[in-house]
């Protein structure tokens, strides 16, 4: 099988953006799906290439760094690229049916830009390229949030925009400071020279704050629930599943490549504390929402907290435990992407049926749309971290790692978080089981909508059984080799 070049991952989406702006309605859709297929194939071919030769680089247009853009495919990048391809294509399929023609017209360009930005973030090993990717991502995401064009979503979009811009600036500031210190922006080079000084600490601090703001980590999260909860369903799914992962991915990259766990233990601890706060606060807030999509949005907030627990668990002392934590974190990210997208899509269908946003309007739906509830439930299983699911496996590895390092606090936090998430998921569930008078005036969603939701949910469960396939891609060297 001839290999598509890495660049395809970025070129195809950009092409898609152009095409969708230029072509007529029908051709737009057809071309989009042709391109989606191409992207999927591209990803698969990269996967095989990776199996063949391991990590590899490619300079776009043969312009090498520092001025040119060099792309790198390693296990982590590949996992995320695959994940985004999967989720994005399913969401696109969903959107095609779910959105109105006008909405769809605006949706496609933003969608393609979003995907391009995502791929560029996964594949870049250069801090500035990452910045560009981030910025493009934010703009596309803001555009998507505003897609429904009513006042609420506009407000959410504006809030999101400002938060994203602030985050980008923070990140850029950090990049500037780092460049000033080390004179390079390429991560591999940086990792060779890096040492923790005051200036680099300040620089990294700025970067992290910016990125965490975009990820909506606990104290900087207030933009997220309205944006994710207020957006159109496929958009919510994309945002929750993929967009926040991008900024977090950069933090993870920085942390592992610069070996920050060796440099500073207290930084990891701080991240852990933020994460714990996010888990508990997000869970608690999710439990108290009355709107279905807000519940899910707050659940995202809590889930982000779990990702943050990777950092305190990366330890310079215990390589095995660190590796477990890293694996666990990646699994959590992946499982969350699949499950949360599935959950949002299923929730969108439920809201479509009842025509209202309120949890109370769900009464009787479990009878009317059992398949949909099942999809929601499967996604919920992964979110709660009940076995067998990707979410459970991730959580398991994190707990194992914490136990091996005797960091019992995180165990307790994870456990409490699981209980909270179980509580809010089952709360939603119990609403669907209520029997009320005249609860049968539902609209019926198209079959595609239900099946797409189900497919993602099922994938999040299957991930629990096939975690080894994913983990095999992760190089042990990513963390432990140093």
């Amino acid at each position, binding site marked *: 099988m001839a290999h598509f070049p890495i660049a395809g991952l970025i070129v195809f989406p950009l092409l898609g953006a152009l095409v969708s702006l230029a072509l007529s309605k029908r051709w737009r859709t057809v071309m989009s799906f042709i391109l989606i297929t191409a992207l999927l194939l591209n990803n698969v071919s990269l996967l095989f290439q990776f199996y063949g030769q391991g990590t590899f680089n490619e300079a776009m247009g043969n312009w090498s760094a*520092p*001025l040119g853009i060099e792309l790198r495919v390693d296990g982590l990048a590949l996992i995320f690229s695959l994940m985004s391809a999967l989720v994005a294509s399913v969401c696109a399929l969903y959107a095609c049916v779910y959105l109105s023609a006008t909405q769809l017209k605006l949706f496609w360009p933003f969608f393609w830009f979003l995907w391009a930005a995502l791929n560029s973030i996964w594949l870049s090993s250069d801090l*500035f390229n990452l*910045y*560009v990717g981030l*910025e*493009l991502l*934010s*703009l596309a995401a*803001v*555009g998507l949030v*505003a897609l429904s*064009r*009513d*006042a609420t979503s*506009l*407000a959410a*979009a*504006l*809030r999101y*925009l*400002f938060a994203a*811009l*602030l985050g980008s*600036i923070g990140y*850029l*500031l950090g*990049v*500037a*400071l780092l*460049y*000033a210190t080390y*004179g390079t*922006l390429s991560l591999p080079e940086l990792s060779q020279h890096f040492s923790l000084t005051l200036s680099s600490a300040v620089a990294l601090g700025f970067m992290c704050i910016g990125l965490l703001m975009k990820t909506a980590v606990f104290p900087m999260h207030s933009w997220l629930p309205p944006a994710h909860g207020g957006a159109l369903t496929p958009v919510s799914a994309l945002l929750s599943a993929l967009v926040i992962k991008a900024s977090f991915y950069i933090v993870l990259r920085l942390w592992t490549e610069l070996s920050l766990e060796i440099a500073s233990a207290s930084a990891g601890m701080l991240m852990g504390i933020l994460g714990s706060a996010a888990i508990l606060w997000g869970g608690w807030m999710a439990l108290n929402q009355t709107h279905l999509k807000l519940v899910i949005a707050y659940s995202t907030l809590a889930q982000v907290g779990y990702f943050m627990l990777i950092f305190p668990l990366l330890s310079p002392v215990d390589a095995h435990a660190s590796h477990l934590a890293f694996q666990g974190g990646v699994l959590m990210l992946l499982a969350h992407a699949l499950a949360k997208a599935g959950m949002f899509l299923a929730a969108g269908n439920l809201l479509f049926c009842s025509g209202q946003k309120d949890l109370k309007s769900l009464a009787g739906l479990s009878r009317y749309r059992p398949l949909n509830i099942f999809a929601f439930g499967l996604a919920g299983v992964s979110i709660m971290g009940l076995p067998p699911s990707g979410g459970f496996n991730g959580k398991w590895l994190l707990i194992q790692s914490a136990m091996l390092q005797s960091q019992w606090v995180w165990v307790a936090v994870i456990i409490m978080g699981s209980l909270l998430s179980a509580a809010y998921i089952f709360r939603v569930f119990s609403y669907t089981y209520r029997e009320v008078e005249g609860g049968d005036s539902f609209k019926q969603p198209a079959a595609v909508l239900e099946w797409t939701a189900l497919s993602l949910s099922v994938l999040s469960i299957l991930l629990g059984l096939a975690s080894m396939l994913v983990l095999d891609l992760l190089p042990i060297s990513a963390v432990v080799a140093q």
Partner: protein
Amino acid sequence: MSSYLIFAYGGVGLCGIGVFGFILHSHLLRRLIAFNLLGSGTFLILVGLSQSGRGQPDYIPQALVLTGIVVAVAATALALVLIRRWAALTKHATLPEDQGPS
């Protein structure tokens, strides 16, 4: 102290103003301008700081800032569209939480 550093400090000053404006003002356009100031300040810092240590001009930051400006313009454009639409829909130039009890 090299002259480049002046740019950098200027950039820091711009950033300060930007942050100040961002926090203080609730009018959306003002916020957008504050953000632009922040962005410009950061670019200045990037260029200024990185030129300071070396003998010849470093072309890389220049290229980066150029890209950055393009991105910032795009962001500003998008923000303007959104703000216009918001104002048209709600007859307000501020977000709901900034509108006060009225």
